[in-house]
C-alpha cells in the first residue's frame, strides 16, 4: 500500500564538484519547502558513489527533515536516535549496491543512519549532536579523526593541521550558537582521506541560517540594503565578525576565514564555502572569489582539500621571527 505521506527521493551519484553542490543545494531547497509531517525514503538505485560533501549534506538534511516534524515528543526522541525504518527519514539500504553499502559503512554513515551509534575510528562521517567545547573538538580531531595510523605527518605538522581545522568547527558552532543548539543547527561533517595522493577532504555543514543572513541581521541598522555578495565579502574580510560568542563585545575577532585561506594557499589545497546565495572559493592568487548561487542554502557548507605531506609545510620549520614575536 502506498503511503501518501511518504516522499521518495532518488539520489544519484554525487561528487565533490560544482554539479554535485548544485544538486545538493537544490535538493535541500526542495525538501525543506515541503510541509511538515511527511516521511522521506531516500533511494540509491542509481547511485554508485557519494563523495564526502554529499554524505555530510544528506546527513544534515535528514536531521533537519526530522526536526521538521509536527510532534514535539517525537522530536525529542529523535534527538537521540533517528533514521530508522520506522521513523521519518529512511535511507534505504536495499536500494544500494554492495559497493555503496561497503563505502558508506566504512565511512560511518550507515552505522549512524541505522541508529547503531557505533563510532568509527579515523576520518569519516560524524553528526555533532551536542555542543562540543573547543578543547573537546581538538582532542576529537587529534585522537579520533586524524589518527596517526591513517595520516602520517610529523607531529608539529599534524598539530598545525588540526589547529586550522578547529577554526572551521568553531566557525560552524558560531554560526548561530547564541540562538540555537548544535542539534538544531544540524552540524554534520564528513572527511575522506586519499592515501595514494595524501589528500584529506573535509566537509562541515551547518543549518544555522547562513553567513549572509547572519551578516545582514548584524549590519541591519548600519548598512541597510546590503547586497548578498557584499555581505559575503564582508564576512570574509579579516577582522569582521558577527560576534556570535558571548564574550567582551569590544574585542578583535574575525580571523577564521583569513587563516583558512592562508592555510589552503600555502599547502596548495582548495577551500569552498557555500552559504545562502553565495559561493566563495580561494583563487590561484590566494584570494577569495565570490559568485552567486541559486537557490539559497539555509546554512553553510565548508569544504577543504588539504595536502597531508610534510613537504608542504616547510615554512613551519623556518624559525623565522614574525613582525612582533
Amino acid at each position, binding site marked *: 500500500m502506498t503511503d501518501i505521506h511518504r516522499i521518495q527521493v532518488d539520489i544519484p551519484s554525487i561528487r565533490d564538484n560544482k554539479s554535485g553542490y548544485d544538486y545538493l543545494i537544490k535538493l535541500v531547497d526542495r525538501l525543506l519547502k515541503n510541509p511538515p509531517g511527511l516521511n522521506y525514503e531516500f533511494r540509491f538505485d542509481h547511485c554508485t558513489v557519494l563523495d564526502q560533501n554529499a554524505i555530510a549534506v544528506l546527513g544534515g538534511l535528514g536531521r533537519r527533515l526530522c526536526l521538521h516534524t509536527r510532534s514535539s515528543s517525537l522530536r525529542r526522541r529523535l534527538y537521540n536516535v533517528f533514521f530508522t525504518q520506522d521513523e521519518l527519514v529512511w535511507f534505504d539500504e536495499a536500494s544500494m549496491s554492495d559497493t555503496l553499502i561497503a563505502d558508506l559503512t566504512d565511512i560511518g554513515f550507515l552505522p549512524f543512519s541505522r541508529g547503531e551509534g557505533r563510532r568509527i575510528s579515523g576520518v569519516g562521517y560524524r553528526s555533532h549532536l551536542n555542543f562540543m*567545547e*573547543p*578543547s573537546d*573538538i*581538538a*582532542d576529537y580531531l*587529534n585522537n579520533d579523526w586524524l589518527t596517526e595510523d591513517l595520516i602520517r605527518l610529523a607531529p*608539529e605538522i599534524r*598539530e*598545525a593541521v*588540526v*589547529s586550522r581545522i*578547529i*577554526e572551521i568547527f*568553531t566557525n560552524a558552532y558560531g554560526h548561530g550558537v547564541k540562538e540555537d543548539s548544535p542539534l538544531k543547527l544540524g552540524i554534520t561533517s564528513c572527511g575522506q582521506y586519499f592515501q595514494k595522493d595524501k589528500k584529506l577532504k573535509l566537509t562541515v555543514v551547518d543549518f544555522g541560517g547562513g553567513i549572509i543572513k547572519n551578516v545582514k541581521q548584524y549590519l541591519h541598522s548600519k548598512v541597510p540594503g546590503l547586497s548578498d555578495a557584499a555581505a559575503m565579502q564582508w564576512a570574509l574580510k*579579516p*577582522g569582521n565578525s558577527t560576534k556570535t*560568542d558571548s*564574550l*567582551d563585545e*569590544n*574585542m*578583535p*575577532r*574575525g*580571523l*577564521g576565514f*583569513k*587563516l583558512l585561506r592562508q592555510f589552503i594557499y600555502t599547502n596548495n589545497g582548495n577551500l569552498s564555502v557555500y552559504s545562502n546565495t553565495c559561493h566563495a572559493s580561494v583563487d590561484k592568487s590566494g584570494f577569495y572569489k565570490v559568485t552567486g548561487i541559486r537557490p539559497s542554502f539555509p546554512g553553510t557548507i565548508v569544504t577543504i582539500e588539504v595536502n597531508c605531506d610534510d613537504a608542504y609545510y616547510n*615554512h*613551519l*620549520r*623556518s*624559525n*623565522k621571527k*614574525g*613582525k*612582533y*614575536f
Partner: protein
Amino acid sequence: MKVLVADITGGNAISMQSGSGLYKLLYDAMSKSESVELDFSGVKHFASPFFNASIGLLLKDFSVDLLMEKITINNLPEFGLELVNEVIENAITYYESNDRSAKARQEIISKNTE
C-alpha cells in the same frame, strides 16, 4: 613572572574562555609594569579565539611596543607564532578603526552642540 600556559589551557589553547584566563594574568602584570614569560610547553593546538581573548584584547589598553617589551614567548611552535602575529596585526587594525570611529562620533557631537 613565568606563566606556564598549559596550566590554564591544558593541551589546547583554543577557546575564548581560556584566553580570558590568560588575559587577566597578563593585564594585572602589565598594569604593574611587570615582565611576563609565557611558556607554551605542553600546548599542542592553537586557535584564533584563544589569542583574540588574551593577547589581542590587551591591545585595547596597552601599546604593541609595550607588549613586545614586557612579554616573552617561549616554546610556541612556528604555526602558533604565526597566529600570534596575525592576531596582533588584526587587533591593532581593530582598535585603530574603533578609535577613528570614536573620534568621528565625538566630532559630530561637538559640531552639533556648538
